[in-house]
């Protein structure tokens, strides 16, 4: 009997068993599934996954169990260790896959096949298995062997548009393209589960970071060229409409948008001119045209800056919003954590972890009217669930477990 028979009436994905053998490209995918109740087992190599090395660490102590990246992205997962590069490991892995519903992996194409546990092999063992592969460039094609990191994929997909014209393209401070792709992979996985519900068959889901970055956060650079032979270039924070950009203020910066709403309504251009002290220079009708404003933004900016410099970012936020202008402060992470809005949403949650203790993590980006109940757990310690899974589920004896351990298999 498969795992799915067991759990019922809890979170959406609770009937499913997910096996994750993924690095930073796939962890968020596993996290999203686990957060919705999927029984997710993270398979690490003996000694622990390399993503445990990703800084920063709690107390700056580079300790296997203290890396924030690992702690955050592996919540609600179980953790086992397994060496896939030896016959035992492959054997055990196959046994695990027999009653798994989903496998999330992010190895370079062909690697798992070379170990005899690629899709075709697993498909024979378990035809209803869904294997979600997250790679830099996809399972085939001229770049399929290319190495990928956040820097590389973001550079190829979106960076050309990032930053000030006068500066080099600007690197994202977070794993933007990797995680954005991981969410797509999670979505695609659910689609494949739907397909399985209808046809009973599993399939191979092939998600490439390059595709997602170009068609997503790449902001249509490609389609713009394809359809208009127009090159989108770096334009700092300046939006196509104007005024809409980051402006300095007393204590920092704020994103100020004026005149996006047509006519005279609140948030419209006339209202904006009025707000910034109705300088005569901006009163002529020509300025009603957004494109004209965009072309002559340098004429407008001094007036705006003169205005914004009178305020703190918080004041600008309040004042602007009171007048229905889409104004927002450029918050520091500290501002965000401490803002009344964030607090009211209880976005940050406390997690208790055996090694780093009770600490505050960012929570999920959504609230549910009727929360789905799931078993909450902190990120697993290295091999924390070996006994549970190997002895409890696969029926190995403690003695055999020791053999596996001694021969470096788990």
């Amino acid at each position, binding site marked *: 009997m498969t795992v799915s028979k067991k759990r019922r009436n809890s979170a959406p994905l609770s009937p499913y068993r997910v096996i994750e053998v993924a690095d930073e490209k796939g962890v968020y995918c596993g996290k999203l599934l686990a957060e919705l109740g999927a029984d997710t087992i993270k398979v690490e190599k003996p000694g622990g996954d390399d993503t445990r090395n990703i800084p920063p660490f709690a107390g700056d102590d580079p300790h296997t169990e203290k890396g924030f990246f690992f702690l955050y992205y592996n919540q609600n997962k179980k953790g086992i260790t397994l060496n896939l590069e*030896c*016959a*035992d490991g492959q*054997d055990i892995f196959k046994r695990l896959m027999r009653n798994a519903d989903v496998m999330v992996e992010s190895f370079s194409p062909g690697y798992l096949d070379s170990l005899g546990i690629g899709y075709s092999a697993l498909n024979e063992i378990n035809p209803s298995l869904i294997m979600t592969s997250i790679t830099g460039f996809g399972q085939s094609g001229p770049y399929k062997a290319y190495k990928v990191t956040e820097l590389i994929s973001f550079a190829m997909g979106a960076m050309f548009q990032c930053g000030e014209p006068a500066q080099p393209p600007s690197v994202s401070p977070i794993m933007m393209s990797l995680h954005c792709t991981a969410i797509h992979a999670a979505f695609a996985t659910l689609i494949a589960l739907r397909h399985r519900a209808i046809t009973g068959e599993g399939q191979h889901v092939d998600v490439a970071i390059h595709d997602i970055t170009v068609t997503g956060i790449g902001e249509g650079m490609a389609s713009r060229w394809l359809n208009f032979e127009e090159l989108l270039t770096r334009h700092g924070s300046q939006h196509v409409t104007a005024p809409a950009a980051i402006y300095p203020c007393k204590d920092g910066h704020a994103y100020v948008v004026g005149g996006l709403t047509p006519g005279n309504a609140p948030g419209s251009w006339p209202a904006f001119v009025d707000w910034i002290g109705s300088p005569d220079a901006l009163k002529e009708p020509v300025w009603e045209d957004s494109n004209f404003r965009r072309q002559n933004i340098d004429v407008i900016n001094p007036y705006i800056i003169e205005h914004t410099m009178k305020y703190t970012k918080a004041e600008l936020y309040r004042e602007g919003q009171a007048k229905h202008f889409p104004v927002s402060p450029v918050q520091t992470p500290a501002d965000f954590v401490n803002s009344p809005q964030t607090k009211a949403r209880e976005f940050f949650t406390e997690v208790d972890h055996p090694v780093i203790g009770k600490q505050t993590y960012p929570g999920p980006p959504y609230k549910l009217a009727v929360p789905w109940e799931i078993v909450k757990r902190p990120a697993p310690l290295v091999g924390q669930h070996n006994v549970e899974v190997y002895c409890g589920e696969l029926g190995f004896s403690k003695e*055999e477990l020791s053999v*596996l351990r*001694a*021969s470096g298999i788990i």
Partner: protein
Amino acid sequence: MQKLPLEGIRITDFCHVWAGPHVTQWLAVMGAEVIKIESNLHPDLTRSFFAGDKTLTPGLNQSVDFAVLNYGKKCCTINMTLPKGRELAKEIMRVSDIVTENFGGAVMDRWGLGYSDLQKLKPDIIMYSGSGFGRTGPYKELPAYAPIVDAFAGLFSLNGCLGSEPCPFGVGGWTDLVAAQHGAFAILAALHHRSNTGEGQYIDLSMTEVASSFLPDAIMDYTMNDRVQGAQGNRDNAMAPHGCYRCQGDDEWIAIAVSSDEEWKAFCDAIGNPEWTTDERFRDGLNRWKNQEELDRLIQEWTKTYSHHEAMEILQRAGVMAGPSLKAEEVVQDSHLREREFFIDIEHPEMGTVRLARLPWKLSDSPQGNYNHAPSLGEHNDYVFKELLNMSDEKIAQLQEEQVIL
């Protein structure tokens, strides 16, 4: 010519039989001047272990047992049963750095030569007492030999083929030597401490405790899990194959161990059975381990067709751990050991050339070591009494009269 590491260190040595002499043996070879105190009343017991069936009336200087345990040492004869003898011995200890003994009981104390007495004699003296059960505790007076200690410590209960009843350990004096080596190390540590602080000390070594500290996993398994391990034979609790297999020649055997899939593949290719790597029973470590009986049988079919040396060559060339189970004579002939000059010839005045194993290590920049022949009884009386204690001939003659030097 460079000096030996321990040159300048003098040891008064009351050790006898096996464990004790082995301690000072190591130190003597490394350059320490070891002066054995014996007497014709009480020669070292091993002097009277006759040499097999070679002769039925061996002289006290012809025992092979003695020869292999006492080379590099000096010997003087003092009758310790006489107060004067003990006084005389004290003179030697006064100019020594270390005193060693392994009597079956507190003999030294009874002689007034316990550590506290020796301290008065020479404050920074280092004294080593080796015994079967330690110099304190309920068994401190009991005589003990290695096998007694082994049986007591649990070694026998862990020896033998898988699941067999307890079995004496075939390597005679194993624990004597292991204990002695611990003793030698402890003495060197004490010497090191003395050279840093000028402070001597007393070392109490119990063979039982040494034997026990050589069974850590069995003991930890008991203290942690209350499990009493039994004999495992040649088996390992992770590796398989891990055993000793019959070879072609007469009573020839080879030990083979495979610790990973790579080695297993190499092994199967080497013996021309590549299909084993895909055989359900043997394809991975866990299955190999579970199906060992069968596996061992099949491997033996292969080993039986080769001599143990052939088998070793074939397997080692493939990168598989394999070692023939050598008989003593084969060890002596072993080409590798010969190239390493593991055996040295010692000229012995009464025994002729004796070929013996040297210390089991080489120091890149120190001479080979002091391999003078094992001393005849009293061979160094002159050196000790004249040169060392510069006593007059008359004095010496008198002491011989009084049977103090005997």
